[in-house]
């Protein structure tokens, strides 16, 4: 039986730990900001948003490359991919009827659970508006606060993003 040396174990643990602790949080913040400007007429009128689209692609590719090193990171990655699908559909000129009914995936848990239940990306962006409310989740406050990954976009600053739900 081969017993790994203490040095091997230490370096393996170190590498694994670094993957867990990689500053994906900064990437999440950047991605959230980039998604926020997409499709904003007022902003695109005065600000050059061209770089934002390619940055979103780059960031999502990078999250894929980083891998699902933990359940929380996996859910965040799925969530941002569902945001991407939402954003693409929202900007599509052919889907004006769909746009009215589209719901931004405001919860990582919702995005992840719809995927896990076998529904596709389309399902991710049609969430039950009664179950998720960005402005008033008082009744569900305990639930949201218990699971920090679920309330990703429910912080005080970000509800402004949901301008046309």
């Amino acid at each position, binding site marked *: 039986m081969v017993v790994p040396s203490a040095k091997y174990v230490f370096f393996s643990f170190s590498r694994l730990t670094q993957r867990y602790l990689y500053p994906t949080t*900064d990437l999440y913040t950047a991605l959230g*900001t980039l998604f926020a400007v997409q499709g904003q007429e007022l902003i695109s009128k005065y600000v050059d948003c061209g770089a934002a689209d390619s940055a979103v692609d780059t960031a999502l590719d990078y999250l894929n490359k980083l891998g699902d090193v933990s359940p929380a990171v996996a859910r965040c990655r799925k969530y941002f991919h569902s945001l991407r699908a939402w954003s693409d559909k929202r900007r599509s000129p052919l889907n004006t009827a769909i746009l009215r009914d589209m719901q931004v995936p405001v919860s990582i848990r919702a995005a992840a659970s719809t995927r896990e239940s076998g529904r596709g990306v389309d399902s991710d962006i049609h969430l039950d508006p009664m179950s998720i409310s960005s402005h008033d989740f008082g009744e569900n406050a305990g639930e949201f606060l218990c699971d920090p990954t679920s309330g*990703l976009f429910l*912080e005080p600053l970000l509800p402004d993003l949901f301008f046309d739900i």
Partner: protein
Amino acid sequence: MLTPCSFVSLKHGRPPAISSESLPVDPPATIHDDCITDEGICEVRGSRTPSPIHFFNAIVQLAHIAETMLSYMLKDAPWCLPGHGQSSARELDPIRLNIQIRLVVEQEGKLAMWLSGLPRHLQFDAETTDGKVKRQQKMLRVRYLHIRLMSHRPNLLSVIQAGRDKTTVLDGDFLRSVVMASVQQCLDCACDIVTMLKDTNGPEDMGAWWYHLPSMCFSPSHA
């Protein structure tokens, strides 16, 4: 703990749990541990990598900048749990927007001072072959971009709110041009963060575990 507290509080727009005002501590001396002896501080012999304490002090200074912004933002607006505050506090008006802009400009000044005060080896454009110093430069740059993004983000949210509410608050040329410049800066910072992380070789390129302590504690709630 001061650093993660400040960064996370800034992201969530809530008061910091730890205030540096209540903990008046001088920064540690920027010397290597092995230069500290019972007799005192001995001289550094030969050329060696600058002490990592330079990096530590720079990170703490960034945390202080984040903290001062939070203190001002929340000075006249008591913080409440999301969904429990007064909705009127979120109404957009020119006065609030002007104050917000002033705050962002102040932050820009502080960040510019911080940048110019960085030790030469940690400057973003400093050439070095030392792997440790490179990692420190990258981490500092990501943190700098991040706090800059967070400083400008309130203006981005105000523009989105103005578009949603169809208010006339941004009809004035001056106010609109300043706010849009801030939004552009916010976007640029977000793009730069993505580029910075993309150009790294992976987690190993970004340094020791303790650089990422905030990520370890608060990762899931950081968008």
